[in-house]
C-alpha cells in the first residue's frame, strides 16, 4: 500500500520508518509546518536530517500530503478534544476520496465516532484505529475477533504515565508530586501531565472501546473520570497491607464507562508495573482474555498502525 502519513511525531515517524519493512511505501509525509510528497517513495534519510535540524519535514504545504495519490491515510497528529480537528478533517478528506484511513489519533474515534462511521459508510475506504487503545496491544482486533456483542466488559490499565507514577509511589513510599517530577525528568510524563494523570487519556480510550462495543453513541463526556492526583501515598500502603494495590483502571460495562483509581490484587493481572498497559476482556464464551504490553512509544505504537494497514481490504 502507498501511505500518506500525517503527523511526524514519535508515532508518525516510526510508521514511516517501519513501513518499508512491511512492504508499504510512504508517498507523503506531513508535520504541522510542511510536507514532502514523492510518488516514488519519500527519501526518509533526507527527512531524518531535516527533522534532526529542526526543519519541517518538507517544503510543500502540509495540505499537499492530503492531496497526494495514496491508498491509506495514516492520521497521527496530536489528539484533540471536542470537534477533534484538524484530525477529523484529514480523515473526512481521505474518505471523501475513497481512501482508507488508519488512526493513531484518538480524538476522532473517541469524540466523533458516529460521524466517523457515517463517513466510512458513504466511502469505498475503510477506517481502522487499533493504535488508539493500548499502544502495541491488539485490543481492538481481539474485540473484533471475539465479536463486540460477545464482549461484556473491558477493563484495563490504559495510561502508562499514570501507571508509572502509581507504581513508583507504591514501591518507594513517595508522594505524588515527588514521583511526578521524577517522571517528567525521565520523559515518562509531559511538562503538562494533566492529560495523563487526570485520566483524560484513559477516558478517551474507554470511549473508543465503548463505541466499538455499543456501535457508537459515546463521547468523552459520557465517561466518569477520576485521576490519581489525590491518591495519598498512605492509601497505597493501606492497599499493600491487604495484598492489593491501586491502579488507574478504565472500565467499560454494558451500563458504565468510567476511569478512576481502583483496588486490584497485587499479584493480579491488572497490577501491571511501570509504563506497561493491560487490557482484560470479559467475554461470553471465551472467558477472560488478558493482553498486556507496551501501551505507548513511537516504535511500539507504529506496529499497531501497520497491523491495521495489513488488515485493510485491497483498494480496487
Amino acid at each position, binding site marked *: 500500500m502507498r501511505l500518506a502519513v500525517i503527523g511526524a511525531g514519535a508515532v508518525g515517524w516510526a510508521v514511516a520508518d517501519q513501513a518499508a519493512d512491511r512492504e508499504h511505501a510512504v508517498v507523503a509525509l506531513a508535520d504541522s509546518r510542511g510536507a514532502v510528497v514523492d510518488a516514488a517513495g519519500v527519501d526518509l534519510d533526507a527527512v531524518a536530517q531535516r527533522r534532526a535540524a529542526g526543519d519541517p519535514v518538507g517544503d510543500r504545504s502540509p495540505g499537499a500530503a492530503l492531496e497526494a495519490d495514496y491508498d491509506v491515510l495514516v492520521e497521527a497528529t496530536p489528539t484533540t478534544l471536542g470537534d477533534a480537528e484538524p484530525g477529523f478533517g484529514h480523515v473526512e478528506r481521505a474518505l471523501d476520496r475513497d481512501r482508507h484511513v488508519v488512526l493513531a489519533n484518538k480524538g476522532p474515534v473517541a469524540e466523533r465516532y458516529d460521524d466517523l462511521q457515517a463517513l466510512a459508510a458513504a466511502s469505498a475506504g475503510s477506517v481502522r484505529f487499533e493504535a488508539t487503545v493500548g499502544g502495541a496491544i491488539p485490543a481492538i482486533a481481539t474485540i473484533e475477533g471475539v465479536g463486540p456483542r460477545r464482549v461484556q466488559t473491558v477493563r484495563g490499565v490504559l495510561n502508562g504515565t499514570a501507571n508509572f507514577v502509581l507504581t513508583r509511589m507504591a514501591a518507594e513510599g513517595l508522594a505524588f508530586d515527588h514521583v511526578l517530577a521524577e517522571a517528567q525528568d525521565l520523559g515518562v510524563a509531559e511538562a503538562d501531565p494533566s492529560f495523563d494523570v487526570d485520566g483524560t487519556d484513559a477516558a478517551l480510550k474507554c470511549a473508543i472501546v465503548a463505541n466499538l462495543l455499543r456501535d457508537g453513541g459515546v463521547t468523552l463526556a459520557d465517561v466518569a473520570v477520576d485521576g490519581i492526583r489525590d491518591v495519598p501515598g*498512605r*492509601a497505597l500502603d493501606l492497599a499493600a497491607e*491487604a495484598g492489593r494495590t491501586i491502579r488507574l*483502571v478504565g472500565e467499560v460495562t454494558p451500563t458504565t464507562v468510567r476511569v478512576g483509581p481502583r*483496588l486490584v490484587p497485587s499479584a493480579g493481572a491488572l497490577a501491571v508495573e511501570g509504563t506497561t498497559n493491560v487490557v482484560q476482556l470479559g467475554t461470553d464464551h471465551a472467558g477472560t482474555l*488478558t493482553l498486556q504490553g507496551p501501551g505507548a512509544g513511537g516504535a511500539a505504537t507504529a506496529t499497531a498502525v501497520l497491523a491495521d494497514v495489513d488488515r485493510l481490504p485491497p483498494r480496487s
Partner: protein
Amino acid sequence: MGEVGADGGEPRAYTVRLELDDRPGELLRALTPIADHGGNLLGIVHERGSVTPRGRVPVEVDVACQPEQFDRIVAALRDAGVTVTRAGEDRYGESVVVLLIGDLVETDLSDTLTRVQAVDGVDVTGMTLEAPEGTEAQSSARLQLAARTGAVAAALSAVRSVADEKDLQVVEPVTGGEQ
C-alpha cells in the same frame, strides 16, 4: 482502631450453624472457642422459636477470621462437645476491601461506618485508619466488608453514597473477571 485478623492477610466471613441445649451458659460455652482462636464475632442469631425435633435450639454465628483459624475454631467447637451442623462461607459469601480518602475524622468516621454497616447483608469486619503524612492533607482508611452473596454491589453503593455526601474519595475494588 485495630484490624481484624492479626495473622496477616485478610479475614473472611464464615457462618457456623450450631445446635445448643436450651439451658443457661450453653451459648457462652459455644462462643468461647471462637474467641479463643481469634475469631471476630459478626453476629449471632439465636433461634429460640425454632427448636429442633431433638429439643435443641439452632444458633447461627457469623464470624470473621483467617481460613486456617476457621478450621481450628470448628475443631475446637467439636472438641468442646458443641454440635456443629454446618460450617462454611455460605452466608457472608463475599469479602471486599475499599479505601476512603479525605477528611475522614472531621466527617465523622464512626457515622460513616455505621451507615455502611446498616445496609442489609453487609458487615464492616475491619477498619484501619492512616493519618496524613508530610504534605498530604488527607487521611486514608481501609474498610474490610463482608457481604452476603449478591450484596457487594449494595455495599459499594452505600460506601459511594456516604462518600459523595461527605466529599470523600472512594477507591473501589475491581469486582468480577479474573483480575
